């Protein structure tokens, strides 16, 4: 067991929905009680469909949004016992700046993540300038660019001159500028082609080995997650439904949603038996009004129709409405947790 770097405890983030009079009538539960432990030097994966709260989790982890409740605990390795508190939400602004030196971010859309009016040199050196490390800045930038497979000749260029993969390399170089311990990767390859994706994934693996980095890898693509991650959490509607080591989870999925998700991923390797999920993703809005509050667990009209279409074809299926039931996380196997009965 390696050392735990960040512990997330019962993290909740609710976005209020207001009516005409400005009072809250409903909540969008982007995060609904998330507990995670992120190990040092490993890659932790978070997988889920759009709207499941994985991006909100990332933003909360960076304290770009304030959580509604719960906390993010930092280990001594990050705080160096210099901070007034080990809780992220209690840090002073000076300590927050210090914390942000140790955590780098790579975003999904490499074009949007680069300011179109800045030269590459300025983009990569920005974190250094912010934290006042202006000595030998040029050498450092060249070193960073070399590290991600770019060179000195790219310093004086604008982002729009680069291809998608090269832009993502620039983003990675910027994230590494302050020698962080953790790199948060939010869908780093989903905007890229397969061959470019392979290059970026290789690069990330090399960097991790070289600098002993901890990755938090967020993605919706299970094949990428399986390739990259040591441990992994599956999220559904703001909750972690299953958490286990990667091999464990892929070989022995417990939660029905995980099983369906695994089988839904198209692949040409092995002909798996399919488990279809029927129905549409329910809206994450929870009404404060008690009568509307609970997500219905009975089968909806659409699901009934789809069941009818699929019956008799020998295809296994689950329905979305059955996933709405509240269950607590149980340890089904050693360090393998799932929300099952």
């Amino acid at each position: 067991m390696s050392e735990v770097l960040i512990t997330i405890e019962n993290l909740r983030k609710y976005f209020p929905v207001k009516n005409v009079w400005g009072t809250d009538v409903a909540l969008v539960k982007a995060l609904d009680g998330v507990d995670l432990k992120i190990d040092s030097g490993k890659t932790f994966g978070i997988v889920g469909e759009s709207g499941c709260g994985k991006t909100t989790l990332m933003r909360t982890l960076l304290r770009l949004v304030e959580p509604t409740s719960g906390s993010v605990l930092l280990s001594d390795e990050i705080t160096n016992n210099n901070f007034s508190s080990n809780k992220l939400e209690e840090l002073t602004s000076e300590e927050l700046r210090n914390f942000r030196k140790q955590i780098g971010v790579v975003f999904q859309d490499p074009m949007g993540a680069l300011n179109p009016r800045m030269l590459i040199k300025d983009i990569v050196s920005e974190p250094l300038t912010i934290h006042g490390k202006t000595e030998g800045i040029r050498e450092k930038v060249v070193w960073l660019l070399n590290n991600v497979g770019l060179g000195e000749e790219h310093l004086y260029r604008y982002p729009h001159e680069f291809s998608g993969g090269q832009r993502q390399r620039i983003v990675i170089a910027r994230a590494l500028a302050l020698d962080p311990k953790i790199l948060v990767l939010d869908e780093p390859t989903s905007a890229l082609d397969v061959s470019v994706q392979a290059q970026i994934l290789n690069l990330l693996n090399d960097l991790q080995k070289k600098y002993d980095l901890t990755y938090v890898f967020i993605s919706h693509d299970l094949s990428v997650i399986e390739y990259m991650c040591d441990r992994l959490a599956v999220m559904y509607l703001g909750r972690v439904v299953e958490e286990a080591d990667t091999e464990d989870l892929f070989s022995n999925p417990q939660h029905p949603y995980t099983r369906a998700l695994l089988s839904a991923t198209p692949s040409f390797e092995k002909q798996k038996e399919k488990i279809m999920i029927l129905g549409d993703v329910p809206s994450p809005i929870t009404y404060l009004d008690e009568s509307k509050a609970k997500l219905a667990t009975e089968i909806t009209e659409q699901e009934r129709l789809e069941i009818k279409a699929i019956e008799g074809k020998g295809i296994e299926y689950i329905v979305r409405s059955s996933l709405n039931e509240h269950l607590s996380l149980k340890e089904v196997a050693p360090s393998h947790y799932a929300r099952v009965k």
Partner: protein
Amino acid sequence: MGDPLAAYVTERTTDEQYDMLAEKHGVNEPLPVRYVAYLRSIITFDWGYSQIAMDDVSDALRDKFAATLELSILAFIVAVATAVPLGIFSSIRQNRWEDHGIRLFALMGSAIPIFWLALFLQFIAATYTDWEISQRVDAKLWYTEPTQIDTPTNFLLIDAIAAGSWIHFKDALQHMILPATVLAYGSMATIIRLMRGNMLDVLGQDYIRTAKSKGLTERQVTYKHGAPNAMIPTTTILGMGFAGLINGSVLTETIFTWPGLGSWAITAMRSMDISAILAYTLFSAFLYIIANLIVDILYAFLDPRVELGGHLSVPEIAIVSVSILMLIITYFSISIAVWFGTFILLAFIILTVYSIVSRFVKNPDDMWVLFLFLGTLFIVWSILSGYFMSIIYISSIIYGLYLVYNREDISKNLGPKLDEFKRAAYQVKKNPLTILGLFLVISLLSIALFAPWLAPPSETQRDPMRMEEHFEFNQQRNFQPPCYFSCTAESGEVDGYILGSTDRGYDIYYGIVWGSRTSLDVAVKVVFTGTFIAVAIGAVSGYYGGRVDDVIMRITDVFIAIPGLVLALAIIAVTDDNSIEMLMYALIIVWWPGFTRIIRAEALRIRNLPYIEAAKAAGASDFRIIFMHIIPNCITSIIVIATMDMGGIVLSLAALGFLGFGGGPDLAEWGKLVSFGQDDMLLGSWWGFFFPGLAVALWALGFYLLGDGIRDILDPKQRN
């Protein structure tokens, strides 16, 4: 401040009579009491007495409103009905000669001063046709027996139809055609440009491709799928268009002596008829708000994605309910209302100060915002007081030193910038209209620069900006026709007026040449000041959002609710200071809210982009994000708007000058020259209004074309 009793006072008024008047109108009371009393009279529809209309203000409003509304509605219908199809057509024929033609036509509509177009049409109509060029109707026909008819609605076209009289209808229509055309052309231009832009946007959308893939014809795709979607953003601007009509009606009505609100307001402003000015200003704000309400409803109809409503915040509810309470109290007792109002105001001020202070105490990092505003104020002050140029010189020297110090880095930086520049030059070459704009702007700026050589002032002239009068009393009419290039006598002396003279003997050529300096001075100062204020406030407001944003946006709302020209006129009239400086201040006050809103919208868009998030995650301060990320990415809009408004400001300046505001009568200023020309127009001196007006039009056209071109060049969508 102007004397509120000016309208009642004549030379023979004694002091005692003056005191009696003052008491009667409550002028001696303290200001808060007078304010509340006025509030009360507004809600009881007792809007005072207008000396000009010789009637109660509310009655005068009622009488004149119909005249203005009839004209405006006709103009509006004409404008929308012609502009929308033209805009669509222009977008289908993008970058072909039809498109260039329509764009030029539209730009000219924005650039040609409305008063000049009006005079031009009037002159043509008076010279070559027997059309009516003034008044609303032939009074003899309508109001005397035996042809008199009832005018119950005071919409004369409707009344004529109701009376079934073709003669009356024709007469009313004949009177309306010219002013309606003039009014329509201005708003048409805006709608065409918007419609074209929106249509181009929409035609690039995915659902247009879907529609084509269904097998619909090009025409069906354009009109069924393209146009309705393009109409949605166009509709939002129609409310603004209506404000433009109210602005325009002031000028049009004055020229065509149309008995409507606009001409009444101008007369009132010239003779300090305070109650009329206030009532008119309030009323046009009211009209504008109603127009925007209608637009909002229309918007919800057109776009199913929009839902009426949204949500109110607690402070909004509080402010609205306090205001209503205040009005109710006012209705019952003035003295309680005064106390109540004072209390509320005090409480509001304390609350604001408290929240600002507590914010800064909590986040001491944010103190820079305060310094930003102080810095902006300093720059504004330096521009207005004339020290701006020295600041520019000093900072360019410092910048030069910086460049020399970092020359290696700079030379490498220059490479990619040069590429951008080459690309821009290539695009300019492709667009003939931009070249035309550039040419116009450069030539007008050189006229301003070389004024002392182009039109040397005579030796007796103290101030070259003040024109000299050349009275020649032996002649009945003092205006001289232009002699163009044959003015030079054999001795080399100029012995005539190159572009003619006005009745007072002002040399029009001299006025145009030196007037370019006035225009440049005012335009540069207003645009620079406005830009600094707008960028500082807009960027902060858009970036922080929330409460700060709310407050700033409500403040801009107040300014925007009153049509620009009317507000500027009201400021000048009420302060009773007819100098060019006051006019400049008025223009700044009118101009900054529009700028601010655009910059704020840009900042709001940019702050949600991932690279802002990336900078935040790297630990960048708000200061850095605003200055390194938000403002550099707004720069395109800032440059485009500033360029276009260089033209727009001169149009407003000329319009105000034409109405007789801004500087003494001998100041070299284009609008003023046009108004001198107007006096003699019907006596055949067309040059008096034609040449100065042409100068205004070319100035505005040049800057509009240039701004349009810059937008096309800098727009990232144009790449690839």
